């Protein structure tokens, strides 16, 4: 196998499994499908260029997220439009939902997008990327206690606003 083919294979093996979650993370950062795809594309391109410098393959997930977050801050954050198109992006859920459940999920998505970035980002790192609080603290360069506070407040805000919206079901009556 020549050098290019080896790099291609390594890239696919290491990076491929994270591409869908990178897109989801980017989408919930940007709130816009086209921007999220461009952001992920830029991230993957930069990862390709720097692949030979990645020595610790166990760290590839955090490496990719670091690249994405830096690129978002550097270039894409100012391109985020004032209104998200999350409702237009989510075409169809694969699980079977009643109309009430669809409404609940739609409201929840809107409320997630409405969270302030300092609450939304750690939540995305935890729920979408599967980060622990310690890993989030390292990625965001803040203390673990601060991460836990932000995560708690993110969830509380989501529950509060959903109750204000009159959304019932599993959310109603929590705490």
């Amino acid at each position: 196998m020549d050098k290019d083919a080896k790099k291609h294979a390594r890239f696919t093996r290491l990076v491929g499994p994270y591409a869908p979650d990178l897109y989801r993370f980017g989408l919930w950062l940007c709130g816009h499908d086209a921007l999220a795809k461009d952001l992920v594309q830029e991230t993957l391109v930069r990862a390709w260029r720097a692949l030979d410098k990645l020595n610790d393959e166990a760290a590839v997930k955090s490496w990719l997220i670091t690249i994405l977050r830096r690129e978002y801050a550097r270039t894409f954050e100012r391109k985020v439009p004032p209104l998200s198109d999350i409702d237009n992006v989510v075409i169809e859920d694969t699980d079977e939902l009643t109309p009430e459940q669809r409404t609940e999920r739609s409201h929840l998505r809107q409320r997630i997008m409405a969270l302030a970035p300092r609450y939304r980002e750690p939540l995305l790192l935890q729920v979408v990327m599967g980060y622990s609080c310690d890993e989030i603290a390292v990625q965001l360069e803040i203390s673990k206690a601060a991460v836990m506070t932000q995560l708690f407040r993110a969830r509380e805000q989501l529950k509060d606003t959903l109750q204000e919206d009159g959304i019932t079901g599993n959310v109603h009556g929590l705490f």
Partner: protein
Amino acid sequence: MDFSEFIRRLGAEPRDQQPDMLSARAGSPEFDRAAVAAEAFEQQLEAALHVPADGDALLEAALQWASREQKNVPRWPWLAVAASILVVVGVVGISRQGAPGPGGGIEHYVRAHFDHDGQQVLAMASEGFNPAELERVLAQLDKRGTAALAERVRFVKFCPTPDGKGAHMVVESESGPVTVIVMPNTRVENSMLVQFDGHQATVFPLNSGSAAIISDSGQQYAALQTLLQSSILPRSS
């Protein structure tokens, strides 16, 4: 641990399996109910965040770029890559040695390009758009823009054109935001009107190259056309 502390830790890590959390839950029905409710909400949250994602397509696009970079072909944003494939398929036969034949090639390109991402790009227009981005894009096309144009631009990105890289903009006109495609290497002798699917495109010559104003109204954009012609200039001028 008191209930308040238990709730705070659940709120941060709903699936916390630390011994003290498990012990607290096992020792109190109230704590256990709170943990059950937290798990239910967490499942809702996961389901809401788990939108469809085609990882293979994203990876393939990146690998295609890598192959092009090795051949020194410039990379364009993901949507522009997809658009370039669409446009290349749709505009077979366009002359690349001067102005396209009357209508045919340009008409096909304008229509295909707008069909691909015209509405999406319009939706990305913003009052808070950074004018410096316009200069960055135009500079790479060996052009510059005037301040009068910059204050009207609401979005800009690179896009493929029949004759190389161009710019896809959203510009504030007399009657709202409209799409403008700048084709720096495509010459047209005279202005032409292209009608398609309820839209109208006015294609006209620039100082060098050409541009198209695309809108969904029957209005003419003479003032905007004049502005574009006087505001998109060779970088060396």
